[in-house]
């Protein structure tokens, strides 16, 4: 029964996804409102994770963020390692973002506004809780008829930069292979991760 519900939710997420949205604010709103519906549903934690990951697959440009997070280390990875890293980084970033979102039991998103510059856009949002507001800013770039998020800033701290500094710290002590193995263990197809 749970599996049927999960499949239904994933199908709904895919069908109801913002097929076309010229406005980055509206595009972001449509995605986040679907996320809110998933988080607020009575699904299990793992089912919510799966549904949210499916939703954000077409919203987050994790390849761009992965390259940015590696920074100077990108060139020290072989082509094969770069490919492996981007696959694992997609899992890592999605799970990090999704898990953070799941910390809010019923997130109340407020859409503050948008700014556009050189074809790219910034959408300012807030997650409002009874006690506090959490400022979340999305940087987006157009991709055909949709928008892709190339960076997320929570309370003025960039998630990409944050992960980048952790990766930098890891790579200063361990080899690329070791770091990839660590990510594989945590976020690979056989890893625990969630």
């Amino acid at each position, binding site marked *: 029964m749970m599996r049927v519900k999960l499949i239904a939710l994933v199908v709904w997420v895919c069908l109801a996804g913002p097929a076309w949205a010229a406005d980055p604010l509206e595009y972001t709103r449509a995605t986040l409102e679907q996320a809110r519906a998933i988080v607020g549903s009575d699904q299990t934690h793992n089912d919510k994770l799966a549904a949210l990951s499916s939703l954000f697959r077409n919203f987050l440009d994790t390849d761009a963020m992965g390259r940015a997070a590696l920074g100077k280390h990108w060139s020290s990875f072989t082509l094969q390692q770069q490919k492996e890293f981007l696959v694992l980084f997609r899992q890592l970033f999605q799970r990090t973002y999704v898990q*953070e979102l799941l*910390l809010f*039991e019923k997130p109340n998103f407020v859409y503050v506004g948008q700014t556009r510059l050189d074809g790219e856009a910034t959408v300012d949002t807030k997650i409002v*809780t009874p006690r506090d507001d*959490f400022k979340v800013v999305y940087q987006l770039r157009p991709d055909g008829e949709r928008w892709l998020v190339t960076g997320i800033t929570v309370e003025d701290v960039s998630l990409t930069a944050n*992960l980048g500094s952790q990766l930098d710290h890891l790579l200063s002590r361990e080899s690329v292979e070791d770091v990839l193995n660590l990510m594989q263990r945590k976020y690979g197809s056989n890893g625990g991760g969630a």
Partner: protein
Amino acid sequence: MKIFAIMLKDLRLISRDRFALASLLIVPMVVILVVASATQSGDGSEGILFPIVNEDQGPVAAALIKVFRKHLDVREVTRATAKHLVADENDAPAALILPPELSKRYLTQKPSTIELLTDPAQWRELEAIKVIMLLADRETASLGDPFSQELLAVREQSITGNRPSFSSLEQNIPGFSLMFVLLTLIFSVSLDLREEEVWGTSGRLAIAPVSAAALLGGKLLARLIIGIVQLLVLLLFGHLVYGLTLGHSPLALSLVVTAIVFSMTCFAAIVAGFVRTREQAIPVGLSVVFVLAALGGLFWPLYDLPKWMQTAANGAVTTWSMFAIQDVILRDEGLAAVSPKLLILFSYGLVSFVIGLRLFRYGDGVGS
């Protein structure tokens, strides 16, 4: 044939004491029931009160509290109430302070320090809490800490004494010492009264111009002195051999020991009032001691007991004895702080003495 005749004679004598016969079976069953309830039917860690001061009110604090609620009796309180529950009431082994901005710092991957205010005297409960805190940290870490950094550091602070932790010996030595003092008192008071009847001295004392209160009081006073010396020597043994701390106030320790032995001696008079023969003394005495030791936290911490037993424990002399001795030797409290428990123990003793006097039967009808 003579051997069987003697056996039959003894069996007839034993069968006349129906109370002793019943005690042989009923008493062990009662002890087994109590011990089984204490060891198997306890509420486990769910019975441990865990006050949390939620100064964050954000999603990370909510996630942590949600995990704690699965395993502990969580109560969201103010900082003052939390300290009161841990330091004054000793109802909770620790309180957690979740600081303001905890969620914001966590979500931006900045480490935070959370305070754990502890009462190390409740070391078993505290250990259970620490295990659950590790679990909560792991569960919360999986919710947004990709490389398992130490985003939550715990600063532990004892608010009931100078030492941050204790060994199991420091709980067990006072517990077992109290149990043996109670055992000695109950047996010596019960058996002494019955043996004087056998020796015939009770008859002579009964017709002496002395009141029942003075007679019983004098006998109990002798046991009181022996009990005080016994408990002091046992604690000293623990101090010299195992490094048991004895607190900083010899006066408080002396008064606590006196109050404990006083209440136990007078309580022994009640037990002696129910014992009619020497045969009854052993099963009745043993059952009372084991049940009170189990109820009063002399063998294991009170939180191991089911709720109804924890409530019943409030009426046990052993519970208040253990509380008082822990206050002095583990919490390093002085006379002023321990005085409410001293008052309870002395009152317990006085009430027990009055009841014991009512039940007192000596010689040929002296007393009641």
